[in-house]
């Protein structure tokens, strides 16, 4: 290596003379012109013609382009073969086993080898570029192994050169391609190596040099067709954007989600800055990214992404009217597209509002699930301090936006808070925003054609109500909110075909049962409060019993859905339904023991059914000890009740006997 370095240092001085001559000669020569023409042709074939290739000959143009590239390669080889530098490359190859796909040249790429503008450097870069194009061509035509070989050849060519503005673009492009290739083979680590080295080359180049680099296409253009500086920068930056995007995928595949999210974010940010994006696509991606932040509890970032998504999606223009859609096919397609994407973004907002409310709820609830006022005060105090720090926080968070969109993003952000709501008014504000988006999303995701999506939106709406009810202090109104949930879900649950929507139906049944249960509890508290410990009046009892039995009905429906066709409950519960099934049993038991009735035989029957269900829970846990952990408190209570209920039943029986 050392010897070679010296040679390369010595070379320029002695070959400068010849270089001038050959360069002059080559640029003007007819041969060079024909090479340029061939290259332009090949580019045109690959990029435009190949799109029109017939289905039964899908790579026609690509194969033609390949031939042209091969010709270019041969003439390049012979063109300057007279300079006697051929053996330098050969020597270099032996340094590393030819097939080892490791990129180890990042470090010395800046310090060793020919300088980029020396004739040897230019020659290597040109040959490398042709190898690069050949490699891409092979990969495109599904000949991956051959493609890899060409790309590695390109790497080898570049190994001889120092990074400079003449060749840095090629340095990055070839690594990008190799990254894609290896990621396609599931060798993520190898891909990571290539892409990370591309990243570091970019960064170092921008730090040390920073001139707009030559694009690879310029190697084969005549002087009058050279690109402008802006165009060069644009292409170079785009290549780096791709690197970031590939790295995001690689990190995701490696399970480094945090890092992957950062890279996704920067990819989006770069797209926005360089305005290389389609608004709807971009907006949808930003909205989805928000979902990642939301699950991580980073609501500021989540809100920012969503606001940016809303603003950018506005750039895509208005949704064409129905009349316009009927007129032309493209319009109707566009309408469909825009509508759908906006509905998707609305759904992301729903999830934002929902998660925000639910997290706030989790923060504020005490051990019986009610609002903890001490905690509320404490958090309010803490909030006041936080608010002062919020401004600072904003600066450190990553932000999207070019100058013209920044303000509109901020104004969208202001419509909903990103801190946890702490009282009913705040929660209501969040809820209303969420509900607004529910309406918007439902407009597109209608029951007819989008069953799963529609139901998911309804479920979210119901959850929004549920979270809001937590903040409501007036029990009467809270009860009404739950009633809204029931009205929403009940008809749907009965409409669905259980063959195809078994899971969804189970969810709905369980939720309905729980809602009825909550309503019943509320009614009871209310009645107790109003009646001042007097006995309940007939109307209330009727109402109460109705809620109670409705709840029990849905729990029972849920349990029935688990049964075999013969109606037998399964001997072994699958893990995902284990807890719900046992909890449902427990609840059914509890509801039956709560039913109010004046006639002793009915009471007796209810108690017996309650006992039966309690027993089931206890027995199942005895037979399957691993289930006990999932339902610890329920099991404890059930065991107790199994002991107590027979006493109660006996007492009732004896009373009945006495009366008779």
């Amino acid at each position, binding site marked *: 290596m050392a010897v070679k370095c010296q040679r390369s240092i010595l070379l320029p001085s002695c070959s400068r003379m010849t270089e001038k001559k050959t360069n002059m000669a080559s640029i003007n020569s007819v041969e060079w012109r024909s090479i340029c023409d061939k290259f332009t042709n090949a580019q045109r074939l690959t990029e435009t013609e190949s799109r029109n290739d017939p289905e039964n000959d*899908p*790579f026609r143009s690509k194969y033609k382009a390949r031939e042209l590239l091969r010709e270019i390669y041969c003439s390049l080889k012979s063109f300057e073969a007279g300079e006697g530098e051929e053996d330098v490359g050969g020597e270099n190859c032996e340094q590393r086993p030819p097939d080892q796909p490791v990129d180890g040249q990042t*470090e010395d790429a800046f310090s060793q080898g020919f300088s980029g503008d020396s004739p040897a450097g230019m020659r290597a870069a040109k040959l490398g570029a042709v190898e690069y194009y050949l490699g891409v061509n092979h990969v495109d035509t*599904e000949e991956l192994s051959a493609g890899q070989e060409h790309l590695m050849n390109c790497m080898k060519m570049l190994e001889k050169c120092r990074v400079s503005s003449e060749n840095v673009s090629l340095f990055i492009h070839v690594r990008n391609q190799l990254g894609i290739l290896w990621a396609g083979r599931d060798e993520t680590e190898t891909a990571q190596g290539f892409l990370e080295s591309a990243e570091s080359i970019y960064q170092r180049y921008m730090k040390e040099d920073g001139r707009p680099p030559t694009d690879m296409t310029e190697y084969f253009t005549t002087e009058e067709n050279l690109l402008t500086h802006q165009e060069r920068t644009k292409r170079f930056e785009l290549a780096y954007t791709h690197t970031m995007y590939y790295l995001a*995928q690689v990190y*995701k595949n490696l399970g480094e989600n945090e890092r992957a999210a950062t890279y996704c974010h920067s990819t989006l940010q770069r797209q926005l800055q360089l305005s290389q994006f389609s608004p709807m696509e971009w907006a949808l991606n930003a909205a*989805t*990214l928000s979902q990642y932040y939301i*699950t991580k509890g980073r609501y500021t970032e989540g809100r920012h992404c969503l606001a940016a998504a809303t603003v950018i999606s506005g750039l895509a223009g208005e949704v064409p009217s129905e009349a316009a859609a009927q007129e032309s096919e493209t319009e109707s397609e566009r309408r469909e597209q825009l509508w759908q994407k906006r509905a998707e973004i609305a759904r*992301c907002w729903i999830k934002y509002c929902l998660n925000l409310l639910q997290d706030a709820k989790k923060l504020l609830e005490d051990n019986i699930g009610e609002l903890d006022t001490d905690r509320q005060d404490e958090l309010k105090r803490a909030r006041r301090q936080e608010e002062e720090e919020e401004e600072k926080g904003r600066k450190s968070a990553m932000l999207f936006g070019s100058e013209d969109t920044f303000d509109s993003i901020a104004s969208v952000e202001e419509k909903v808070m990103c801190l946890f709501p702490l009282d009913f008014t705040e929660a209501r504000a969040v809820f209303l925003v969420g509900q607004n988006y529910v309406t918007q999303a439902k407009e597109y995701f209608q029951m007819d054609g989008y069953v799963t999506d529609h139901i998911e939106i309804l479920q979210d709406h119901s959850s929004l109500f549920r979270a809001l009810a937590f903040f409501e202090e007036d029990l009467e109104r809270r009860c009404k909110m739950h009633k809204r949930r029931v009205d929403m879900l009940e008809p749907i649950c009965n409409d669905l075909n259980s063959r195809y929507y078994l899971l969804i139906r189970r969810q709905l049944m369980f939720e309905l049962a729980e809602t009825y249960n909550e309503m019943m509890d509320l009614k009871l508290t209310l009645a107790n409060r109003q009646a001042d410990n007097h006995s309940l009046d007939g109307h209330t009892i009727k109402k109460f019993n109705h809620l109670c039995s409705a709840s029990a009905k849905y729990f029972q429906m849920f349990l029935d859905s688990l049964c075999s066709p013969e109606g037998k409950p399964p001997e072994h519960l699958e893990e995902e339904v284990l807890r719900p099934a046992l909890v449902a049993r427990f609840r059914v038991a509890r509801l039956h023991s709560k039913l109010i009735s004046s006639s002793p035989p009915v009471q007796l029957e209810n108690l017996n059914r309650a006992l039966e269900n309690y027993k089931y829970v206890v027995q199942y846990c005895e037979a399957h000890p691993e289930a006990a952990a999932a339902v610890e408190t329920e099991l404890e209570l059930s065991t107790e009740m199994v002991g107590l209920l027979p006493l109660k039943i006996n007492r009732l029986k004896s009373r009945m006997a006495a009366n008779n």
Partner: protein
Amino acid sequence: IMSKNKSSESVKVVVRCRPLSRKEESNGPAGGIVQMDLRLGQVILKNPRAPPSEPQKTFTFDAVYDSSSKQRDLYDESVRPLIDSVLAGFNGTIFAYGQTGTGKTYTMQGLWLDPEKQGVIPNAFDHIFTHISRSQSDKQYLVRASYLEIYLEEIRDLLDPNHGNTRGLELRESPETGVYVQDLTSCVCKSIKEIEEVMNVGNQARAVGATDMNEHSSRSHALFLITVECSQPGPDGRKHIRVGRLNLVDLAGSERQAKTGVQGDRLKEAAKINLSLSALGNVISALADGRSSHVPYRDSKLTRLLQDSLGGNAKTVMVATLGPAPQHYDETLTTLRYANRAKNIQNQPRVNEDPKDALLREFQKEIARLRAQLNHRRFRSKQKKEQVDGEAEEFVKLEEQRLEKENEAIREDQFLLAEEKQKLLGENEKMMGDLRKRQEATEQLTARYKAMESKLLVGGKNIIDHTNEQQKMLEMKRQEIAEQTRREREMQQQMLIQDEEAVELRETFTSLQQEVEAKTKKLKKLYAKLQCTKAEIKDVNDEHVRSRQELEQTQNELTRELKFKYLIIENFIPPEEKNKIMNRLMFDPEEDEWKFKPLVPDESKSSQMKKRPASAVGYKRPISQYARVALSMGTHSRYRAENVMLLELDMTPP
């Protein structure tokens, strides 16, 4: 209502390797890189570029088929049980997965003309119809077939003659029937001939292209869907319907799937790098797929269509195809890894019983209705015909008599009479016409009834059963053998695992000699293992060393640079300047670089930049005594600091 199989079962994965092609044989002297152990179900992959000491990679599957395997073997051993369960009402799926040109289409379709080389699909047809013809006569069957392809994320109906012009079909969902393809043609098939015809029509419409890698490269994913509905009287006397659905999937080459982003993460497969930036969504969605958040990523069409087959309620067989050529080592490895992962997908197969949408039920109802109508009509028309005929004849006779009588009597009225007669005759004719029409309708009805009935295949009688008892026995035997081989292989695999343990347990040796032998064997085995581990350790070590060297180099370089910079500082920058700079330096941890503090501290900006000092006597700027005197003396412009021009208000009105 569905019954549920208690145990879930995993996707069955078999691997098949094609022989070296002539081109490949001439290219490389070294033979294939794939070795297969048929008995153990193992694939051993040799890296052609690695030194021979490197341990080979071994994968174990449910079954493996080497280049000499027959289509029939694969079918009997691996596919037949699946088709049987489809006929029993389960959903079943067969996939072919692999690199371009490794024989996916050959495995699925094979060569139609050569019975030896028929692939999975024709064999399945044969199997289904043979089964139907042999079943008891109280069973009724309805077989439907659809054929579609997914090309560039667009669903095309291959059975629709003008599918080329229409836009792609849509996937829709309804509360009644779940996910389905809107407007998909589905043909009712009565025999092998018919279903083969359906397949042929579809195949001709498929997008097939010629590439350098493969002369007939399938450019799309093709799905052949067969629905078998079977009605059988249950113990309760009512007819129960079971619906089995068979999906036969011929995937496009695996390298293409990464490009089109076909594999959603629902396929339990990591999303690959996609070439277009617009696919950024896939990555982000995969990231966000956490707790209850919404991912606006409607799964790819293929996965949505097959959601039952992957982790759903279907039985699934995946055939991974390999090419043995050394230049495709990496792709082969990828395919094997993918197949290995697919083994872990768990499905919960269940029988579809009495679904609401069974077409068979509709057909049965329609037939019953038609039959009732027909009987009714026959009965009525018979009565009516007699009546009408009799009446008409009598009427005509009477009229004629009367005509003749009156003909002569009233000649003037001849015209009138003729007219009347004409009218009467006309009426008569009309009546006859009606009759005919009614007859025609009845005939039509009968025809429709016949057609309807013929669509239903009844076990045992309608289909000419070519096979006699012996052949049937033969088939059974063959099946048994296949089953046996499968079990044997499973046992072998088990044995291999238990072997190692067993050796340790078997401590009683009959003689010292034997003990020595056994121990030596064990030693050798352990030694080989040791070597393997050592090699691994060495690899890891090497890697560490390499990375350490790289780091060292970086460090050296950085140190050198630092020294150089220090040298410059010491020699060229005066110490007080240096101190000033040092004091202003500040490390910014966010951007990871050193920065200068601004000359004027941020927060004290307002206090530092003091206002211009006011002049002592209220002037806007300092002004010398002399100037002040001079100014008071007169309006000498020289001493006027500002307002050089005095524009006093002109007091004199014009």
